């Protein structure tokens, strides 16, 4: 906070390395999708460069922060940067939750003849608007004209509830970690952080197990609008938990290095908020997919 002029980094090469990494990743991905043999390794190379860039660039930012290069204005710009990132994340999940609501409350009932769509049932003989819909009429790969939706009861109090309990517990532990950091209790902070990361990893383990069960029981990405929205929502959520657990691990490393104090710990705040957000998304999933 010593320098009162806005800090502008000079001579940094990380942006161009990032651009090269992204370009190589997408060249690899495009060729992978065309089933070209070198697609996957090239994409792997691109991702490696991206990870290298992230470590290097964020490492530089951390070192600049510790050396006292940043002032209050830079601090504000970090906070705003984080808020825009959060806005994009909220909109991302809003789109998927929106798709779930639209399919469930509007388009599926319409296909079944709701509102002024009394003729649509003529298009798909035997179709009844039910939820979960696992065989969308007219969809690519939809087999025959059977829209039968027979369901076996799965105990919502099984894995989904265990996972909710795990993630909510991690929300409690990170709140205790936050409290410990604000009070300057370093050992408690480290212990609560380790507990939070462990609970997150455990959640991911159970989620993989649940996918195994669901897939085995015939619920796939191609299982109608329900299968698609189920896997996209829970899959992207799982990806976010993974990213959150990595960020928490980095923060734990930084705590052990003594980078934060009870007043100055924006990096912790950003990651803590992100973790709470991911927790709320799961709670929304649990309630809207399994209950309401």
């Amino acid at each position, binding site marked *: 906070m010593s320098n009162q002029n806005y800090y502008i980094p000079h001579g940094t090469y990380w942006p161009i390395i990032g651009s090269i990494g992204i370009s190589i990743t997408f060249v690899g991905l495009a060729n992978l999708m065309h089933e070209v043999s070198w697609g996957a390794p090239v994409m792997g190379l691109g991702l490696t460069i991206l990870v290298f860039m992230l470590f290097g660039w964020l490492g530089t930012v951390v070192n600049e922060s510790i050396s006292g290069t940043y002032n209050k204005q830079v601090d504000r710009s970090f906070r705003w940067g984080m808020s825009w990132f*959060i806005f994009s994340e909220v909109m991302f999940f809003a789109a998927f939750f929106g798709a779930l609501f639209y399919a469930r409350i509007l388009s599926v009932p319409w296909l079944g003849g709701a509102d002024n769509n009394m003729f649509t049932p003529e298009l798909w003989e035997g179709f009844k608007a039910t939820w979960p819909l696992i065989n969308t009429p007219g969809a690519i790969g939809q087999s025959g004209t059977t829209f039968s939706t027979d*369901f076996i009861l*799965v105990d*919502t109090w099984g894995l989904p509830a265990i996972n909710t309990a795990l993630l*909510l517990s991690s929300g409690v532990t990170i709140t205790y970690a936050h409290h410990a950091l604000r009070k300057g209790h370093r050992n408690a902070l480290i212990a609560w952080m380790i507990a939070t990361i462990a609970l997150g990893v455990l959640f991911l383990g159970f989620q993989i197990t649940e996918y195994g069960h669901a897939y085995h029981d015939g619920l796939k990405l191609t299982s109608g609008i329900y299968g698609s929205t189920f896997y996209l929502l829970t899959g992207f959520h799982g990806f976010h938990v993974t990213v959150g657990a990595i960020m928490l691990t980095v923060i734990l490393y930084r705590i052990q290095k003594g980078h934060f104090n009870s007043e100055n710990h924006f990096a912790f705040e*950003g990651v803590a908020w992100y973790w*709470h957000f991911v927790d709320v998304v799961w709670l929304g999933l649990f309630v809207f997919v399994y209950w309401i």
Partner: protein
Amino acid sequence: MDIIIIAIIIVILFSLGSALVGMIRGGEKGSDKMFKSLRLRISLSVFLFIMLMFASYMGWIEPNNVLPTQ
């Protein structure tokens, strides 16, 4: 029952948003607001989960049947 669940979720979202405002503001006040809002949001979430368990046990709500058979 659904209305109560959705109402609690709205309050949870509101407190998460309030924490975000605190984080953007920064400083001692902002940091304080952020922590208190996050504490409220986790408390409400745990309460909602326990309430769901209780309501289900009492037979007030039924879970969705989630896995289709083919």
